[in-house]
């Protein structure tokens, strides 16, 4: 083995990597929030929408679930260029991840809605709540409780998927790593550092979610 490892460039670049890791978390969290809102809407459209709305939601969900996330990112990045829409790298990642998250979460939400017994909504309505009130105060909190773990998994996926931003020029953890690696020619060292940081990020996300779960869903 004629290779000498040089860790100094990595240590010198650690602050940059940490900042990039924060960008990764931001992008993942933001795409998750948008994904939850869109996913809820899509799930409700698939359950209660009229024909055209049902079709729209179904097409969205099936495309998001049956094509690679990277292709979806490329579509927002390069495909839309055909119409003269040029998004910034951050917007490409945000749109792509939100689109993907919404598709996956819609199915989770749909399963959650189907698992709530009908009697719950009947009871809410008979207590004088309006339809939207009963959804907002009775159904949706229970759905969130049911799909909390899939939701956490999706957030972890979002963190991992945001690494695709590297291929559309977004400087999150992977993009920054690649930039630094090709600047210093220490490819292996930098990618190993990125792998370690991603591992820690995922553990932090899972740990936070576990603590939050104990706080939120304790009876």
């Amino acid at each position, binding site marked *: *083995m004629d*290779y000498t490892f040089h860790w100094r460039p990595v240590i010198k670049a650690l602050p940059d990597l940490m900042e990039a890791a924060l960008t990764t978390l931001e992008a993942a969290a933001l795409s998750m929030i948008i994904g939850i809102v869109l996913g809820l809407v899509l799930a409700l459209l698939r359950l209660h929408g009229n024909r055209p709305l049902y079709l729209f939601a179904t097409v969205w969900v099936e495309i998001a*679930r*049956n094509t*690679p996330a990277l292709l979806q990112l490329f579509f927002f990045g390069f*495909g839309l*260029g055909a119409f003269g829409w040029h998004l910034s790298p951050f917007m490409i990642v945000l749109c792509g991840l939100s689109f993907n998250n919404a598709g996956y979460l819609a199915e989770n939400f749909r399963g959650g809605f189907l698992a709530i017994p009908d009697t719950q909504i009947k009871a809410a309505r008979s207590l004088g709540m309006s339809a939207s009130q009963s959804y907002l105060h009775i159904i949706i909190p229970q759905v969130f409780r049911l799909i909390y773990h899939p939701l956490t998994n999706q957030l972890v996926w979002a963190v991992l998927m945001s690494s*695709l931003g590297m291929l559309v020029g977004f400087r999150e953890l992977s993009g920054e790593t690649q930039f630094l690696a090709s600047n210093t020619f220490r490819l292996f060292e930098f990618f190993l550092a990125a792998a370690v940081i991603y591992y820690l990020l995922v553990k932090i996300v899972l740990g936070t979610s576990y603590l939050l779960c104990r706080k939120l869903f304790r009876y």
Partner: protein
Amino acid sequence: MSTEVNAIQFFSGFQVSDLWYLAKGAGGTIVISAIAISVGTILGCLFGWALSVSRWANMTLGSVLDVFRSVPLIIQLLLFFNFLPILGLPVGPFAAGTIVLIFYTAALVAQVARGGIEAVPSSMRNAARSLGMTYWQDIRYVVMPVGLRAVLPAWTGVALGVLKDSALVSVLGYIELLRASQILVTRTQEPFIILTIVGLFYFALSYPISKMTARLEQRWQYD
């Protein structure tokens, strides 16, 4: 300037023959994901079995497999691909991509397989053993029929995930569907239509399988 560029036919529009090129790319996707899924599943089942029988394996192997699920695939690919020259091994993009995908699949399948084994009630297995079945007979005739049904949807999810994630091997330079599309986009400058066609290719690969599993799952519920 631009007329000169056009004069030497630097760019040319999308042609029907390009569809054949994309189809060959799809062949690359199918080959690499088929290898990764089949070998990864076998390996993953072994890992899953080890995880379920031994606490020691659970701690060591479990935490190693956890790394594959906690680091983005693209980083795993680049890390492994850049690690090989350090060892002095000249391995091409296809081999490197396949190896990483196999272990990635195995790590995901191990979790599924463990779930399947644990889905079989221990009373059922004790009953099998007390009827005189050996350990492996118990695995073959009791655990597998019950466990496989329980985890088929999860396994299909993993397999389809790997099929889609195989697009990332394009980063190493292996020409599969996505890489083929990028090459065509560079030549034709028509990203919208090409990405749409590639999307349809992936959809055609993935959608029938997911629908079939959903139907199978529904049928099994009434058995």
